[in-house]
């Protein structure tokens, strides 16, 4: 028999006992569906993260911490041994008081590949309002060297840290509270920002706010992942706000343990090594995003295990189905053998039947998960993802699906070998005598 004839015969035989075949395929389908859909969701999440990272850029953006603190923090997060009680070190002090002294900043800035590096100021701003208006709004702002971030602007421009004027970048979210209809109209407006003066607040808690006026130089489009969710300001405004906050605060109680800056993206590895020598660690956007990825990867693994268990059960179903089929078709096998069909071809006939069970199971899995996936995408786009027309909740990767289908077919083949061997070993005379 030709291979094509074998496949046709096997497929034909498969649908002789429709209920049994359907149930076996259903078992395969449960496994394939679980695996295909969870992979598609994972692809969707990764695709989203990739697109967002590509959108915001900032490949070389780093957040720098003293090593002692980094270890303590990452140790606490991962639950590793470094979170255990440690002996106090006179030289380095507590990890909490791990400051980045100016001389270290100089060393770090001098490392080849570092474009810029600044101490990150945590600014506890109190409120912001449109200049001349009464209504105040909660606000948090931050500054980091601009680097190669691609900010999606609906109007105006990105902040410029070479400019000595105070600049702030707002988001479209501020249009409505400020009662302004278009982003263009917001650009150029002045805002007033209030910040607590720490030392003064110690003495007169009810009267310790200082205000600064800044110019809105740009408006950011909504929905783009930002580094922290805070509004971006330029260096001049950052320095001014920090100066006001720290006025009269003794040097010894100021803590600066994070530096932010930009590194040439292709030199990240060498910079990381040099920073370690000096006693610092950094994380990149990829590291931060990597944690999200890891989280979803773990979920994927869990679902794949579920799918794998379902497939294992399905494989046993395939074995059972084929044994029954061999039993029922003993005479047919005998006849085929008498008419000159070889052992190998009989084996192949039943193996193909097993493979087809796997094939149909995964094809139905693909079709159904695509229907559900695309419906979910459509639903998401009309509701909570309406701001992200390019983002799909579920992304189907043809190569992944092909690999999954092939793996399932391989599992089905392995499951089918025992019954197929039994069929191929039958003696034509005994088979024909079989009643």
């Amino acid at each position, binding site marked *: 028999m030709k291979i094509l004839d074998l496949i046709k015969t096997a497929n034909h035989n498969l649908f002789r006992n429709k209920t049994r075949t359907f149930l076996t395929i259903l078992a395969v389908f449960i496994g394939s569906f679980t695996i295909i859909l969870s992979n598609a969701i994972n692809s969707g999440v990764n695709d989203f993260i990739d697109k967002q990272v590509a959108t915001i850029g900032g490949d070389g953006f780093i957040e720098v911490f003293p090593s002692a603190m980094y270890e303590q923090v990452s140790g606490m997060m991962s639950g590793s041994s470094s979170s255990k009680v440690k002996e106090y070190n006179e030289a380095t002090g507590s990890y909490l008081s791990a400051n980045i002294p100016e001389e270290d900043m100089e060393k770090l800035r001098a490392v080849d590949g570092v474009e810029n590096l600044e101490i990150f100021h945590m600014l506890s701003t109190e409120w912001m309002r449109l200049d001349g208006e009464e209504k105040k709004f909660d606000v948090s702002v931050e500054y980091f060297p601009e680097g190669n971030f691609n900010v999606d602007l609906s109007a105006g421009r990105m902040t410029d840290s070479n400019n000595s004027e105070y600049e702030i970048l707002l988001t479209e979210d501020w249009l409505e509270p400020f009662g302004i209809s278009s982003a263009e109209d917001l650009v150029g407006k002045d805002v007033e920002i209030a910040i607590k003066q720490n030392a003064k607040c110690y003495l007169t808690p009810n009267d310790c706010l200082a205000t600064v006026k800044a110019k809105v130089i740009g408006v950011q489009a909504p929905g783009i992942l930002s580094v922290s969710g805070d509004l971006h300001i330029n260096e001049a405004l950052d320095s001014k706000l920090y100066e006001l906050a720290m006025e009269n605060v003794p040097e010894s109680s100021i803590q600066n343990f994070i530096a932010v800056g930009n590194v040439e993206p292709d030199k990240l590895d060498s910079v990381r090594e040099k920073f370690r020598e000096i006693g610092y660690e950094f994380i990149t956007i990829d590291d931060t995003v990597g944690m999200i990825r890891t989280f979803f990867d773990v979920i994927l693994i869990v679902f794949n295990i579920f799918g794998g268990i379902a497939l294992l059960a399905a494989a046993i179903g395939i074995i059972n189905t084929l044994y029954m089929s061999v039993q029922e078709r003993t005479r047919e096998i005998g006849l085929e053998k008498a008419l000159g*069909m*070889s052992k190998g071809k009989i084996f192949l006939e039943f193996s193909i039947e097993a493979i087809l069970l796997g094939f149909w199971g995964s094809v139905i899995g693909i079709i159904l998960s695509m229907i559900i996936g695309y419906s979910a995408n459509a639903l998401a786009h009309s509701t909570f993802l309406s701001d992200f027309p390019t983002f799909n909740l579920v992304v189907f990767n043809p190569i992944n699906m092909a690999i999954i289908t092939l793996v399932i077919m391989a599992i089905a083949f392995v499951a089918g070998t025992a019954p197929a061997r039994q069929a191929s070993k039958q003696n034509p005379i005994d088979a024909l005598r079989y009643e």
Partner: protein
Amino acid sequence: MDKVIEVKNLTKTYGKKATAFTALKDINLSIYEGESVAIVGKSGSGKSTLMHILALLDKPTKGEVLIDGVNATKLKNRDLNKLRNERFGFVFQQFFMNANDSVLENVLLPLKIAKLSRGKRKKQAMEALKIVELEQKAKNKATNLSGGQKQRVCIARAIVNNPKIIFADEPTGNLDSATGDKITDLLFGLNKEQGVTLIIVTHDEDLAKLCNRIIRISDGKIISDQTVRKDSQKKASNRRESEAARVKKANERK
């Protein structure tokens, strides 16, 4: 005439040592081209075993089987399969048809195994069905046929590959005498018109008498091997016009 099958010192033993059972004992036999041979014996006499060995479905414990002078006992499985597929046709008492397949599919199975192209298969299968007068039923499911029709389909399947030898195991055993006669007419028609060697295993004396040679087997041994005189053979066949010949003539007239 050429020897199509020759058997030398054939012995077949089942089981081992103490429980061994010898089904065939030292059989020597030659079958010539164009003969119609009846192998007659009671059940358990070894007649079926002999047929299985002649048809290369089973291997002898000792001795040789030569098909057209070639020692089949020394052939590889692949060549055995090919030999059976190309030169033999089989008709069984229980038909052995794939009930859910169409009549046509059943008939062309040997050609499918022989890897013939789709077109050739169908053409040859339709020709074979014409000979058994069932070309109208080609598309019917095999289950929907009567017993006689089923056996005619089996004959069509047996001749579809233009075999040199047809093995028939109790071909009329499951049929009433009228339909049985039709089947025997078909088989002997093929024997006479096309020179196909016919080997029939039966315990039916009437069927055996239609053959020109009767080999009687008892307890694994040939107890008689008689070739019937040609004229009596003729008489038997002249009683009815060969079914196959009649069809052929009818077709020629068209």
